[in-house]
């Protein structure tokens, strides 16, 4: 488990909330920083003193200050910390819920968990720490689609061809022949079946006829 943690946030109230969660989880040392530059110095100092942090929890956005700063955001801090401390677990704890941001932070910046601030923020934070201790990645449910490879919004020309063929009354085996003739793949009956099932799922259709009707209603062809 974690013994020493650094929380970087410019909202004291939030800090206090997180603090109580961490106390419950049995942390010995909880340090705080209001600016990313301070946080970076603290991390360096601790490592230098042979008492490194076990965990970094940081917000993403910080109020603008009138003093000169090098690291303006949590993202900057991650970018600065990560190369020097590749094994330090990092949790981003932020109001930001843009999926793209989440995806970038997790996938390319090497952040271990992304927790959204909110009513359930504290609960998520605890879950995040548990996941990290097991070597997993955690993201709050609000933004979990950022990492979901299965979410496919687009329907493509292939899908449309299937529905069009169905709409003119062709059976699935006739569609298979049609696809072969037009060099479209996959053209096997089983893959057509599979794709149609997925579409039925996506469009919440009871059967193929229903699916065609929904396509028509939505003006997709």
């Amino acid at each position, binding site marked *: 488990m974690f013994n020493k943690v650094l929380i970087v946030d410019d909202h004291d109230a939030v800090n206090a909330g997180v603090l109580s969660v961490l106390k419950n989880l049995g942390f010995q040392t909880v340090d705080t920083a209001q600016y990313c530059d301070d946080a970076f110095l603290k991390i360096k100092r601790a490592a230098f003193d042979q008492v490194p942090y076990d965990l970094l929890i940081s917000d993403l956005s910080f109020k603008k200050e009138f003093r000169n700063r090098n690291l303006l955001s949590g993202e900057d801090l991650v970018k600065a910390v990560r190369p020097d401390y590749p094994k330090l677990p990092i949790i981003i704890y932020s*109001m930001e*819920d*843009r*999926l*793209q941001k989440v995806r970038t932070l997790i996938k390319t910046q090497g952040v271990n968990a992304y927790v959204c601030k*909110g*009513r359930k923020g504290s609960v998520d934070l605890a879950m995040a720490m548990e996941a990290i201790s097991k070597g997993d990645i955690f993201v709050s449910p609000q933004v979990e*689609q*950022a990492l979901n490879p299965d*979410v496919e*919004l*687009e*329907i493509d020309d292939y899908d*449309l061809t299937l529905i069009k063929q169905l709409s003119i009354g062709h059976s699935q085996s006739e569609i298979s022949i049609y696809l072969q003739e037009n060099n479209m793949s996959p053209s096997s009956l089983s893959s057509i079946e599979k794709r149609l099932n997925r579409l039925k799922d*996506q*469009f*919440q259709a009871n059967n193929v006829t229903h699916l065609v009707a*929904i396509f028509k*209603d*939505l*003006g*997709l062809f």
Partner: protein
Amino acid sequence: MKNLAVILFIFCAVNTLTGQPSKQNLKYKDSLQYYYDLANHPQSPFDLANAYKFYNEKQKLSSAKKDTLTAIKYLRQIAIIQLKLGDYYGSESSEVEALRYLEAMKQTDFTRKNKLGLYNELGGIYKERMDYDLALKYFNKGLELAQTKAENNIIKNNMALVYNKQLQFEKSETLLSEVYKNSIILGDSVQLARALDNLGFVEGKLNRPDALDHMKQALNMRLTRNDQLGTYASYKHLSQYFMDQNDYEKAQSYAQKAYNISKQIQSTSYLEDALDNLISTRPNTIEYQYKKLKDSIETAKKLAENKYALMKFDYLNQRQIASTFKIQKEKEHLKSLLFRTLVVIIMVVVALILSMLYSKNQRDRLQEIYLTETRISKKLHDEVANDVYQVMTQLESDIANKDKVLDALEDIYSRTRDISKENSSIALNENFEEVLKDLLMRYHTNKVNVITRNLSKIDWNAFESFKKITLYRILQELMVNMKKHSNATIVAITFRSKGKKLTINYSDNGVGCQLKKLSGLRNVENRMVTINGSAIFDSKPGQGFKAKISM
């Protein structure tokens, strides 16, 4: 004045070719008739000068009025007066000016006749100036235009006289025989006699056997017609013929006869010419030597005068050119001043229009900002302040229910964030396809399936930022509406692009709505107006919602 007859002939020809106005036409134009008489039959030394002044003013008036036909007539009259005054260069200049007018006109029989006359007159002038090659050149130009036999005769006769001066008698003979043949066909006895006389004279120079016969024939014709001037010319030619033959006795006898006729003619110039001729037939006399000396002096004087006249004319001409140049320069200066003023005015007007447009644009933008501010403010009031007030009253009455209050607060919190998100900046520098996907994915839940078509096929880099921002905001607005009001389970969004044009079709399977109720849709419409796009909505309760956005 050996060739008085020749000069007379030229004038005769000039008058035929000038196309002088008929007296009938001029009866009521007293002054015109008066000056025409002054010019053509001068009585006092000042008549020509007065006529010149009159015609010069008339001519300037006509050219100013762009009445070219009249201007040409006056110019030719001026040329004749100048020629009579001995101003060969001035006369030449007037004729050239008349020619220039004619060149600019459409070619008609009128212009042909006038040009022919002018070429003939110019030839005569150059002959008088002893510039024989130039004279021939102009006569040849005239010959090209000559159509009738009479016209041909006049020009050819004049050319023959030039060849005589150049002592090219063979050429002269050829031309004069043609003139003679033409005259026979024309049947004009005066012309015939003249042609025969001139031909005989040239034949004499060439020692042709028919020479004397032709001259005598001409003399007889003239005597029969009692043509005094013609008879005089015949006698003179005969005396010169015999001089060439060294038969001074006969030469003297014809010279004497010419002298007698000249006395009858009562013209001092004829008298002078006759005496001059008479003296020529008496070589070895003191009078003859005096005449020879005087002739050579006069020729030299004439050449000098010609040269001086040319210089004087050139000087005047240069001065005139200089003054026209100056006037033109002033005109151009005025023109350029006008032009520059115009340019300045146009620039000022353009600047004014631009600044007006700019300030209108500025006002529109301020208006837009104002509308956005009021929209946000209204939202804060409706969606946040009211609910916070509710929570406050809840807390006053029911303090114990902590979870209920927390739920209410979280709801307010998330709505505040929604408002913030609706107006937050859009990451345009990131992959716009991803940005859009993230936006739509946020509304893609267990209950709602958001489906896109062609989103990945659009080249988003081809679109300007403001279009992307508008598109993002509109989709956001549509999705918020969908989430709030529609209860839809499926949302399909189709993207299409054609060049710079982007079309988005939105449709869902929700409960639909009465269109006018939704303020969010008004925002969409407003946004479309600002970027010259269009938004068409289609919905009825229970039949889903459709939108077509074009930008």
